[in-house]
């Protein structure tokens, strides 16, 4: 592992509280207020922006290093996930716990994929569209988009429908799903490891 990576990782971690403070500062002053507030506040505002940009670049760089550098990944992620391989038994148990974690994560991903594809809508039709005396409709569908679609404008007939239930994929954001999966991986691995160690 390169020493520079270790140094940059420390800068990234120790810089996090500073970035939070700067984010609070820039949130309380919008750009126009900062520009008119005087040279000191204006310079601080610009410095905060520069620091945040540099920190973002650092985050992307370290993320890529985690993917492509085996030694860096092993050193950093072993600490985050509390992986201990002090002897051959712990290596074997780590493998078993990792397998359990991988399979449960895959199961969760399959469930999330299904939930993101399914669409269920229950709505009541306007009186002029009622057919056969039935005014309530259940609409089922499957949706798979390679790229995120922009929300479409509702058509005239859609606007006349009175929606009762409208489920169109997961209601949580992709960031929440990714963060949830990271937490799940660490938790599942440590839980499996503890059970195996008993």
């Amino acid at each position: 592992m390169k020493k520079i990576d270790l140094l940059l990782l420390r800068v990234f971690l120790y810089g996090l509280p500073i970035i939070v403070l700067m984010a609070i500062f820039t949130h309380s002053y919008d750009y126009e207020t900062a520009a008119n507030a005087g040279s000191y506040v204006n310079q601080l505002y610009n410095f905060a922006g520069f620091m945040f940009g540099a920190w973002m670049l650092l985050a992307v760089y370290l993320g890529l290093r985690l993917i492509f550098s085996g030694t860096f990944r092993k050193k950093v992620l072993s600490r985050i996930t509390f992986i201990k391989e002090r002897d051959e038994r712990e290596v074997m148990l780590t493998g078993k716990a990792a397998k359990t974690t991988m399979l449960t994560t895959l199961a969760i991903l399959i469930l999330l994929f299904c939930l993101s594809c399914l669409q269920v809508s229950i709505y009541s039709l306007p009186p002029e569209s009622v057919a056969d005396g039935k005014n309530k409709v259940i609409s089922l569908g499957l949706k798979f988009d390679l790229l995120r679609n922009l929300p479409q404008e509702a058509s005239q007939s859609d606007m006349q429908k009175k929606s009762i239930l409208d489920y169109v994929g997961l209601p949580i954001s992709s960031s929440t799903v990714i963060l949830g999966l990271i937490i799940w991986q660490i938790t599942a691995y440590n839980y499996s490891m503890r059970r195996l160690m008993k």
Partner: protein
Amino acid sequence: MTKSTMLLKISNRLHVIRAEHRITQDQLAKEIGVTRATIVAIEGGGYNPSLELAFRLARYFKTDINAIFSIEEDTNEEN
């Protein structure tokens, strides 16, 4: 269809030999280069060590590997 399966159960006398040598689990673990939990697991039969670790144990106690580990054969008939 009848399938004959030979089950092999590995047992060990590690705790006996360790007691004979008056050495604690912690000391043995340090000498062999493993954790104490591994020695506990081997003695309790919860973990079968690798061939390399088995030879390391035998070499440490200056004995034959068969003096520590033995295999009990058990034929189980499955229908």
